[in-house]
């Protein structure tokens, strides 16, 4: 189908964007990469009165090292993340995860900020933000605030973003040289949404483990992290997957997802040089 009609506006500054959004009193939607929003509009799941295209907003661009963290502008596209020298040198986890996101035509358009704001439970970026201990910078009419990824994802397509707020940037503490990462994702075909996936970060006996595609949102499982840190065998570690409230659908039942989460975790850990 085709999208229902809407006003199209393309601001060039953040202030302009916020003003335009405010003018529509909750009926406008920000357009980032459009790789989820456009399908939702074509399916008529979303029917905003206006689209505020953020493509030209300068404050949302760029990847830079800022002190001991890396700032990624919300409108950074996946393809840019895949080729950026700062990201390639400092956060190898992106290199492990990004090739799993759809296909190059989608990665040329899709943005990190768009993915986080949407919070699709099967998306990779939210899980990465959790294990990288990212901080998400948000702005709105009442000012700017920063929120930890751990407190950002609230549920099924639900985040801590308030009405008329925008994600400006993501701040990721620069991983140390001895930081190690693992990633694995199981799909029906390459590029499909994950049926079960996991991202792992490890440093000095401390693990951060986040699953995606298995529940209503990307989630860390502290019991799994602690068991891995204790050096428990995988047989024991995976018993803690019971802490996850698995979702079941036409693609995979709850039991299948639990089984696949186990497989994904095992392979992610196996792939790490610990």
């Amino acid at each position, binding site marked *: 189908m085709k999208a229902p*009609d*809407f006003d*199209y506006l393309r601001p060039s500054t953040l202030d302009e964007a916020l003003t335009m959004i405010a003018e529509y009193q909750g009926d406008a939607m920000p357009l980032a990469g459009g790789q989820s929003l*456009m*399908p939702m509009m074509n399916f008529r799941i979303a029917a905003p009165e206006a689209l505020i*295209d953020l*493509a030209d907003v300068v404050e949302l661009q760029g990847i830079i090292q800022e002190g001991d963290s890396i700032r990624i502008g919300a409108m950074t596209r996946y393809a840019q993340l895949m080729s950026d020298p700062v990201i390639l040198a400092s956060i190898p986890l992106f290199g492990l995860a990004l090739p799993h996101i759809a*296909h190059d*035509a989608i990665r040329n*358009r899709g943005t990190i900020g768009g993915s986080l704001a949407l919070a699709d439970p099967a998306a990779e970026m939210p899980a990465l933000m959790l294990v990288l201990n990212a901080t998400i910078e948000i702005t709105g009419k009442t000012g700017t605030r920063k929120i930890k990824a751990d407190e950002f994802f609230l549920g099924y397509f639900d985040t801590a973003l308030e009405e008329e707020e925008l994600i400006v940037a993501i701040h990721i503490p620069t991983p140390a040289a001895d930081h190690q990462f693992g990633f694995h994702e199981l799909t029906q075909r390459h590029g499909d949404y994950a049926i079960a996936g996991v991202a792992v970060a490890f440093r000095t006996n401390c693990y951060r483990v986040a699953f995606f595609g298995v529940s209503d949102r990307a989630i860390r499982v502290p019991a799994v992290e602690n068991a891995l840190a204790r050096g428990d065998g995988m047989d024991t570690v995976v018993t803690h997957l019971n802490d996850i409230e698995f979702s079941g659908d036409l693609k995979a039942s709850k039991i299948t997802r639990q089984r696949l989460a186990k497989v994904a975790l095992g392979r992610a850990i196996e792939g790490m040089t610990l």
Partner: protein
Amino acid sequence: MSRSIDIALSVNGERVTATVPSRLNLVDFLRNELCLTGSHVGCEHGVCGACTLTVDGETVRGCLMLAAQVDGKEVTTVEGLADSGKSTKLQAAFTKRNALQCGFCTPGMLASALGYINAGGDANRDAIRKHISGNYCRCTGYQSIVDAICDVIEEART
């Protein structure tokens, strides 16, 4: 307020100006307004890859971009690829290998495959399969498409 938008862009090297409804997607604009019917409309939600074309040299889904978003950009469709000779070798390889039957997926498949070849991709069947996994073909079973892409890469290396 702004339900139609003035755009100026380059399509296959030709300057185009138009006033388009804001809801008009890029592939419908190309097909219905410019009569460039090479880009096909399949699923209209970014899954099938039939509308794959390039904007500023990068492959995109023509159904997931608005005509309004390509203001100031350079769009290349399969017609442009063919006229400029950029897809000549690949087209020949598709013919030789029988890499198409009905042809519905072919324009998108060519754009996608050229993205892989031009980025320096190897003649590695697994990697090629992964790359074209976002372009559906219901005729060939993909083997012959992978063969054709491999041929072009290997030919360029010899």
